[in-house]
Structures are given as structure tokens and as C-alpha cells.
């Protein structure tokens, strides 16, 4: 490396001192601004449902109650659904990284004769959409993927956006890496897997995050293809259904019983259920995030390459 340790000790300019302080203040303010809705959501989720209808809950529950969580978590179907969601998220993420990374690499190879063609074909998929019915018919009538676990995996193995993100990153890596490997007689498959792939950890972590979050949060595929198979329901689908039914019973509650005080015991309401659902479905992502985040550390890659 060309660095000279003594350079670090030269006198600092005044904004070098002020900047970190201002920066810290800005970031702390930003943290509060973005943390507020999150804490508010948690507070509402831990509030009594009927009381929460009145609104005005800030950073702390007004009438504490875990009923929203209990009503969701006591349902054994939630655990089956969580298992479905977790497993499909892992599988989808791994498959995406596998395919997307390889394709991205090939599309950085200038000499590749199909590069332009494939790139165009891929990019267009982001801007053209056939519409719901043709896609539905493809999955059901042509491929017969409905009412099966595979419908979560097979149609979601690739995303062009992520491929572009990866491609941009790989293109930024020094070409010398590929060249020297080629001189050593390595083919593209080996170059990719042995040299490029390991260097892409930060961006692979990013793409993994995007794919995992997308897969974890998806409910539409369950709704379209697996709604009649209770044991294949995904967590998000199940939670969405819970919210919908709470909404509905809120309306149906009132028939001829408006005078009956003692039946109106504290119950879950859409307001609190919605927040509890958000918390329940976000926590797993929060748990996984630090493991991915550690790859986003500046300077790790090239430092290790160039030595």
C-alpha cells in the first residue's frame, strides 16, 4: 500500500473537527425521526384494542395489553406458516444469488457475444408486464404449479434489478483479477466462483437482503395459487387474513346488540392487530439483518485483493 502513517498526524482543518459533530447531530435527529413511527407502532401493538381506537397513542401504550399478540400467536397455523415462509425465503434467496451472480458476471464480459442481446432481454422485463391473467394461466394451466410449495420457488428465482446491481459492482472490480486468472488457464466458471464470487460479498449481502425481504413479505402468490391449501399458507398471507377478518368482525359486531354493555369486553381491533402484525413480521428481518450488515464494511474488499 502507498499509505504513509505519518500523514495521519498532520494538523486538521477546522471543519474536520466540526464535521463529525454536526454529522453525529444530524444522524441522531434522523434516527429519532425514523424511530418514531416504529416505536409508535410497537406501542399501539401493545395497547388494548378497543382503547387504541381512540387514537392519540404516542411512544408508550396507554392501556397495556398483549391481547393482539396472543390472538395471533395462539393460532397453531401461524407456526406452520412461519416455517413455510422461512424455508421459502432461504431457498429463494440462495437460488437467486446462485443464478443472478453468474448471469451478472457473464454480462460484464465484454467479449461475450450474447452480452448485448441478453442484457436487452433482461432489462426489458423490468418495464414490460404481460398482466395478471396470462401469468396466472402460465403458472396454473401450463406449469401446474398451483397448490404446491414449488410455486413459491420456481417463479421467483431471478430478478433483473438485482442482476443489474450485481453487474455494476462486478464491473467495478479490477479487470486484472480476471486477466491473471486467465493466464493461469482458468475458465470463466472457475474465475467466477473462485475469484469474483468471494469478492462480491457486500453486494451479495445487499441482494440477499432484497430477495429475502421480498420473499418474506410476499403474500400474493399464496393468495393466487395456494389459498385453498391451509398447510401451504405463508405467514404474510395468514397475517393479512387475520387483519381482514378483524376488520370485518369490527363491522359485523353491530347487529342488534348495541345495548349490551357486558358483551363489549376488550377485544382485538384492526388498529392494534395491524401493528402487532407489522412487529411480528418485521422481527425476523431485524434478527437476520446484522448478519448481512457486517458485510457492508467499507474498504474490506480491495484491501484484501491488492496486497
Amino acid at each position: 500500500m502507498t499509505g504513509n502513517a505519518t500523514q495521519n498526524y498532520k494538523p486538521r482543518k477546522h471543519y474536520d473537527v466540526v464535521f463529525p459533530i454536526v454529522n453525529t447531530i444530524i444522524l441522531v435527529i434522523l434516527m429519532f425521526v425514523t424511530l418514531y413511527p416504529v416505536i409508535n407502532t410497537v406501542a399501539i401493538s401493545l395497547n388494548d384494542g378497543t382503547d387504541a381506537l381512540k387514537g392519540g397513542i404516542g411512544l408508550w401504550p396507554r392501556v397495556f395489553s398483549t391481547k393482539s399478540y396472543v390472538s395471533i400467536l395462539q393460532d397453531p397455523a401461524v407456526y406452520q406458516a412461519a416455517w413455510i415462509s422461512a424455508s421459502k425465503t432461504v431457498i429463494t434467496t440462495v437460488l437467486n444469488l446462485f443464478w443472478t451472480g453468474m448471469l451478472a458476471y457473464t454480462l460484464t464480459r465484454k467479449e461475450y457475444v450474447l452480452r448485448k442481446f441478453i442484457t436487452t432481454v433482461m432489462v426489458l422485463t423490468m418495464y414490460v408486464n404481460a398482466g395478471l391473467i396470462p401469468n396466472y394461466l402460465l403458472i396454473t394451466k401450463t406449469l401446474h404449479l398451483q397448490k404446491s410449495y414449488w410455486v413459491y420457488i420456481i417463479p421467483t428465482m431471478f430478478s433483473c434489478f438485482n442482476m443489474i446491481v450485481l453487474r455494476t459492482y462486478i464491473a467495478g472490480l479490477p479487470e486484472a483479477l480476471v486477466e491473471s486468472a486467465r493466464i493461469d488457464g482458468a475458465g470463466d466458471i472457475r474465475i467466477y466462483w473462485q475469484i469474483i464470487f468471494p469478492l462480491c460479498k457486500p453486494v451479495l449481502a445487499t441482494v440477499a437482503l432484497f430477495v429475502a425481504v421480498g420473499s418474506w413479505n410476499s403474500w400474493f402468490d399464496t393468495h393466487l395459487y395456494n389459498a385453498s391449501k391451509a398447510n401451504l399458507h405463508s405467514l404474510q398471507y395468514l397475517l393479512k387474513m387475520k387483519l381482514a377478518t378483524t376488520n370485518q368482525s369490527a363491522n359485523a359486531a353491530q347487529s342488534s346488540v348495541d345495548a349490551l354493555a357486558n358483551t363489549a369486553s376488550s377485544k382485538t381491533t384492526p388498529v392494534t392487530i395491524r401493528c402487532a402484525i407489522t412487529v411480528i413480521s418485521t422481527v425476523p428481518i431485524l434478527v437476520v439483518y446484522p448478519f448481512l450488515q457486517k458485510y457492508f464494511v467499507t474498504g474490506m474488499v480491495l484491501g484484501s485483493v491488492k496486497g
Partner: protein
Amino acid sequence: MRKLLSVLLTLCLLGSLLVPFAVAEAQEPITLTVFRGDPGDQPYEDNKIYKKIEEEFGIKFEFEFLAGDLNETLGLKLQDLEDLPDLFDGGNSAEMIIDGGALINLLDYINPEDTPNLWAHIEPQKNRVITKDEITGEDVMYIIPNYGLTDGPQIANSVGGPAFFIQKQVLAWGGYPEIHTLDEYFDLIERFLAENPTNADGTPYVGFDILTEDWRRFCMINPVQHLMGRPNDGEVLIDVNKEDFPTETFINQPYAKPYYKKLNEEFQKGIISPDTFVMSFDQYIAQLSSGIVLGMFDQAWDFGDATNALLTDGKFENTYVALGLIYDEDDVPAEDMPEGWKIEEHYLNGSLPNLDRGFGISVSCKCPERIIAMWERMLDDDWQLLFNWGVEGEDYSIENGRLTMTAEQYANTQDVEWQRHNKARAFFESSPKRQGWILDGDLKGNCWEPGNQDEIVFGLMNDYDKDFLGHYGYSKFADFVNPPIELAPYGEAWQIDKAPIDKDYQDFLNIQDTQLPAVIMASPEEFDAKWDAFVEAINPSCEVYSNFMHEEVLKLVAAYYGE
């Protein structure tokens, strides 16, 4: 060879003789796939009602509930008619699956001889329930209405639908007056507000809320027809006293103007806040639940959650009474009235069969006769009691021939989790059912539904309400409005499917959404101009809509009279 043939023949004969027994006795277990066109909870494995169904009929269910958009979901299901759910409930868009040929004609199975129960169930309303196929001209019935085929005189304990609502404390403060006109209503609210600008906590009261969020725009649009004295026909006013049932949208008529003029005045006085037009449904419920909204036009079921919240807090005085307001004679100039129109208050309508709502049997179902046989048997008293009241001794009891529930048992029936173990909601809600009064047998004079039973409605009523009703000398909250009138031959016009004119209808809605709030908020000088501009903008779509509705109403009337 001959021997063989004769053996075979004998076997066939024997077989055919055995078939009836086979159906009745050896019920081969089957699982039916069921689609419900609304959201719902999967029942638990140990659900006691479904267990009984399985025991007696050998039938299990695999439920699918609606999660996304209804029309979209149905549209996709229609793509493959060979793979439809056996029991198919199209929710509020059932017309789509009927038109799409997804359902079988139930009349192929239902007739007075084979299915006396089912036939007796639909017979009183058969002119509404049975229609003619537009192409083949044959009698068809695809869906037995899930609600509204009631036995005995109509039960009306309270107003469950549209009305002008007012907080009980406002009436109490005003000395329990009778309120019948817009002027009386707003006058009372104004006087109350002038003397009580805030509640005990210091939160300002809101005089009158107008909810406009999405489809709940009916709170802004629908009042005019009721002020004109008609029950809920949606967005049109129909003169049922004339032979040709003149039908028109009312929102663009001169007689609608006085209502919005009144709202405009109240807006200027600050009784209505501009915030009401940007309010989400959640914010609306929040306001109502806090007990600070004195009045609004709505339907009772729409704010059930808010009522529950108020009851939980013991704020009985902040709960609402439904009032049947009508135009006063001098509200509407005589020349603005439809010809020969007389205003008479009718907020409650006759019992209405929920046409085309409920389960149909799909064309891909392998065993329609078993479903019909099950429904037929289920209309018997024992099954109806089981579905409605539960298991005797466990969920309810019979004392001196009266069906009763303890407060706790009744509270259970409202608990969603309890229902998943103990009720067959997902199946029963969309199936044919008895409602109203039990007309025969030991339990004659009881109600099929616990929520209508006197012991529950009045037995569990809180003291504030009893006292409140006492001041008026009423026994029930429905006494604030006139008793139900006879249902018009066309039913209620909001039931009519607007698909053929859907784009014009969407225009109709959009113009109201964008312009009507501005009309209400206009300055007094601008009001007339803005109203005229609104009427001009909405007239084209109103015309299409009115004409279409008139045709449909006439068709329904003709069908009702069997022409």
C-alpha cells in the same frame, strides 16, 4: 354367456335398488373445497360443529377465504371451470360467477317433492329468488340467499342500517325531544355545542361528521333519499306509488340541494369541520370512540367498533340513537319535488332476501346431490338450533320453553377465537338458514337467532339505556323510527348489479368525491354557482345511471309479479 348376462343384470338391478341406501347410509367420506368471497378464519381441527357435520354427513370442508381483491380473484378462478371450489360463494360479486357459468342450476335438484324443507324455505320469496335465464328462458336459481328468508313477522328491535345518528346525551340535555327534521336536528346540536363546547376532559366536541373515505362516501351521498322518505335504494330515488316506478339519481336533483345547502350553512357555523373531508375511516372511528362526535349520518354496522369502545368505557351517554329525519314541508320548494311526491318517513324496510349472496354449487362439483341433501336435512330444527345457539346445556339452555343464554355464554358467541372452536361460521354464514321466529314445535315463539331473542336484547340491556328509553316511553330503539314498510317489489335498488354501466358509474362516483365536499365548503355566495357546476358535471353520468336503473327496476318488478 347367458348366465353371465343374467347375473350381471341381477347385479345391476340389485345395485340400483341399493343406491338409495348407499346415499343415505354408507356415506363415503368426502372433502369439499369451499370458497368464501370474504375474509375469514380457518376453524380449528377440534371444532365441535364441523365434527358433527362429519359424523352425520361424512363431509369435511377445505376452506379458502378471500385475501385480495374480490373481482380479480373471481376473474382468475373463472379461467378454469374444471377446477372450481365445490361450494362457491362469490361474495358481493356473485353475479360474475353466475354469468361466467360457474354454478349449477339448483332447481335441477330442489323441488317440493324431493326437498320439502328447501322448497318451503324459498317458496314465499320464489318470485325474487327464481329468475329466468336471459338466453334459454328457463327458470334458474343459482344461489339460495344466505340471509333474509325469514319466518314470521319481521323483527326490528333497533336500526341496523342507515340513519341520522345523535349522541344520547344531546337528546337527554335537550329534554328528550322528538326530532324529525333537519332543522330540529341541527338546531339541537348547535344549542348543545353553544353551551357545551368541550367534554369533561376539555376536548372540543365535533358537531357533525361526514365520512367520505372511498366506498363509505355513502355517508355523504345517501341521506337525500331518506330525507325524501324512502328506505335505502342506494343512489336512486324510486316512486313506488306510480305504476312505472320512475327511477332517478337524486344527487343531481333540485330536491337534493336543500340538504347540501343546510350542510353548507352548518359548515359556515363551524358545526362541520373541514377535517371531516380528509378523514380516514380509522380517524373517524377514533373520533367516535372518544365520544366527541355529536352526530353523523351513517349505517349502524359501520361504526360498531366505536360503539363497543364507548360501551367498554361505560360512556353510555356518548352512544348513539338512530333518528329518521325527513325534509320539512318548507325545506323543499313545491316545484322542486317530483310530481305527486309525498314525504313520509321510512328508514326501516321490509325483510329483504339477500339475493345471489351465499353458496352456489360449482359445475366442477362431483356430488351436488349430497350437498343438497345435507342442506335439506340442515333446515330441520335440531341443526338450525345447533348452528344458531350451539349445544344445549353447554352454549345455551331451555327454561320453560324459552331459549336463554347467560351473559357469559352470549359474550362467548361474539369471541372470534371461541367461534373457531365452537361455531361453523365459514360454512353456515353462506348456507341456507332459518331466521326470524320459530313457528312450530316446543320452542314456538323463540327466535332462531340469539341476537333477536327478547331475553338477550332486553335482558342484557344496560341501565342507562333502559332509563333513556323510559323517558320517551319506548321499549326499544327502533321506536325512534316508523315500523318497517312493505318491501317494494323490486327489493332494494342498491342490490342491482351495475356492471353494464360500470364506467359511467365510476364517473358518477368520482365527480361526487371531488366536487361535493367543495360544494359543502363553499362560501355562501359561491354555493349556488358551485352546486350548479356540480350538477352540470354529474348530469351525463346520472342520466345513464338513472335510465339503466329504471330498466332494471322494471325488470325486477315484472319478475316479481311473475310476468
